[in-house]
């Protein structure tokens, strides 16, 4: 447990662990895969000493289903993995979505498809945001852009999971996971969600009626009703949209980028502002719910858009949908295999501005 | 008449497993159908006195369709055994 205000220099992966521990995570279920191995390694050291649970599962499939079990008990629990392992967790994520279980899943994503590489990539945007598992469900997706934000957002992930009784994914990448930055600890707090009876969770029935947590709805109209109720829940998540606007007020062009790429683009924009280029940044922090209203507002104000991602173009679909009444978005895709630098984005931004370098 | 064994006809699916374990072979298939369309078993009045309340039928029944009661105290030795399911 961290001391409030404690200042440390740590990797993003460790920040996620410390944030989860501070937020009262009681159970961690992991499996090795690069580049998230620091997370299960840290948790295996720390959790038992706190009297909490660490299990190295036999697979990502099993880890995610252990998470399902702990979440059904109403206990703050999480799992972490990286892209190929996250694919294996989709089964349980869909079941947890359907069963409305509060669970936190961390994806320190890597290059794909398939085994890909172990470097940074944002190729899992669709999987995270559009429902990587089967069926009509959504998960909350939080994308930190700094190590501090990784610490802060993992705490928020637990709060949101219990507020909405829904899976929440923290979507980082090899940059966020492996980068070291100074972090102020201690703001994440354990809340009452680890109390024994939340009104829906499994505790052993005691003297009350038995509870049943399931996603199977076979009777006429039952699934339709369930899914419509879920739709309303997903719509209500809109009030927890998070984003960062940077120098957008007088900008002609707004770069839309998330996570590590958003943060790198910010450096590019700072540099280009110094030479008088009117460019700003919109960085979605929640990828679902997506900050569509804010983007629509910016579009209505006459802004133009360039979406920059570390993939072939995924979030750009959501940006285009959000701004469609007034504008469109250009796209620049950085390929995996390299660590992008602020300089990499200068030419694409100049091109979108219609300026020849 | 005092009947030591009764079948809940709405539960019986006519599987006849009880007929195979009854030591007195007094359970038979009736000609009646229940509301689910299953033919149901019965112990006919003329043989019901032969029931020893051994509860074998109840133990083998997959559908909880059988109720068995012990005979009054002075009855035969066989019934001293505890034949609760446990």
């Amino acid at each position: 447990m961290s001391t409030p205000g404690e200042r440390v220099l740590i990797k993003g992966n460790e920040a996620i662990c410390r944030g989860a521990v501070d937020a009262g995570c009681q159970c961690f279920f992991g499996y090795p895969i690069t580049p998230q191995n620091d997370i299960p390694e840290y948790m295996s050291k720390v959790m038992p000493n706190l009297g909490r649970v660490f299990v190295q599962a036999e697979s990502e499939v099993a880890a995610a289903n252990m998470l399902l079990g702990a979440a059904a008990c109403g206990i703050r629990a999480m799992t972490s993995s990286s892209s190929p392992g996250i694919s294996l967790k989709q089964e349980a994520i869909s079941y947890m979505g359907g069963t409305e279980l509060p669970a936190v899943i961390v994806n320190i994503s890597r290059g794909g498809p398939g085994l890909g590489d172990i470097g940074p990539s944002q190729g899992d945007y669709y999987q995270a945001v559009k429902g990587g598992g089967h069926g009509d469900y959504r998960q909350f997706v939080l994308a930190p852009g700094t190590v501090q934000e990784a610490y802060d957002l993992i705490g928020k992930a637990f709060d949101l999971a219990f507020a909405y009784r829904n899976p929440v994914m923290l979507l980082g990448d090899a940059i966020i996971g492996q980068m070291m930055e100074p972090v102020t600890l201690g703001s994440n707090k354990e809340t009452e969600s680890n109390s024994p009876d939340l009104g829906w969770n499994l505790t052993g029935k005691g003297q009350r009626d038995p509870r049943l947590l399931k996603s199977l709805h076979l009777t006429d109209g039952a699934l339709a009703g369930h899914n419509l109720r879920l739709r309303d829940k997903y719509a209500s998540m809109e009030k927890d949209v998070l984003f960062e606007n940077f120098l957008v007020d007088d900008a002609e062009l707004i770069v839309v980028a998330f996570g590590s790429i958003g943060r790198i683009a910010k450096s590019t924009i700072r540099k280009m502002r110094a030479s008088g280029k009117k460019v700003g940044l919109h960085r979605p922090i929640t990828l679902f719910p997506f900050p569509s209203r804010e983007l629509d507002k910016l579009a209505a104000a006459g802004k133009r858009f360039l979406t920059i991602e570390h993939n072939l173009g995924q979030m750009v679909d959501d940006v285009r949908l959000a701004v469609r009444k007034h504008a469109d978005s250009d796209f620049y895709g950085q390929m995996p295999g390299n660590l992008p630098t602020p300089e990499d984005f200068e030419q694409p931004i100049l091109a979108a501005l219609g300026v020849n370098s | 008449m005092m009947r030591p064994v009764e079948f809940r006809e709405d539960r019986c699916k006519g599987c006849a497993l009880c007929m195979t374990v009854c030591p007195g072979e007094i359970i038979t298939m009736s000609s009646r159908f229940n509301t689910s369309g299953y033919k149901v078993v019965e112990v006919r009045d003329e043989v019901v006195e032969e029931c020893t309340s051994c509860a074998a039928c109840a133990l083998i029944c997959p559908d909880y369709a059988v109720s068995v009661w012990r005979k009054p105290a002075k009855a035969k030795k066989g019934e001293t055994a505890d034949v609760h399911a446990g």
Partner: protein
Amino acid sequence: MKNGKAAFTLPGVLADIPTHYCPGCQHGVAQRLVAECLDELALSEKAICIGSIGCSVFIYNYLKVDSVEAPHGRAPAVATGVKRARPEAAVFTYQGDGDLASIGMAETMHCANRGERVTIVFVNNTVYGMTGGQMAPTTMVGQRTTTCPGGRCADNEGEPIKMTEIIASLGGTAYAARVAVDSVKHVRAAKKAVRRAFEAPLNNLGLGFVEILATCPTNWKMTPVQANKRISEELIPYFPLGTYKNLMGEQAAEGTEVEG
């Protein structure tokens, strides 16, 4: 004689409702034995049942305890999460052969190997029942199913998997037994085994595992009586009944009587 003493009573934790099972299906007996043990060991208030996928999926309709539905084959992983989150709970899974021995083989073996303090109730009827009678990992050689219409061929599909022997070989298993419910004698023995499978984790010794050989008259295309005969004539010779591991020992097991 309704005023006389009952010679057979249904356990209170068992919902007294008609089952969805086909005529002669022995899931009904298997779940009743589980219910009897829950009552006798006074576990219903602290039990958490992990349902599985297959005909067993509706176990939560029949046992009046807290329950969660697991994805296909994952019940032992879900049970691990539940037990680790709530160590005070009596956690058990109820799974069929397709669920446990095919898609859930890894979860089952590792749950046992870790010695999770949970109970696994395994109902083996040698076929996928709910999906319409396809070949299962425990389908007998020569047995015809909808996906081995010529009969299971050992060369192509391998031999039926003996789960109790496998589970008994793992270090974390405290109790493993195979039973049948085809005769009164076997039902009584099965009841004891189910009870031991609950007692082993309650005594903090490791995993409790019980395999119950059961009929599927519908998919075996037999009458219930023919199907029941097949248990002793074909299944038991290949899947021998008995206790394959018991860390409690009979004496210790007898000494663990709990109120109720």
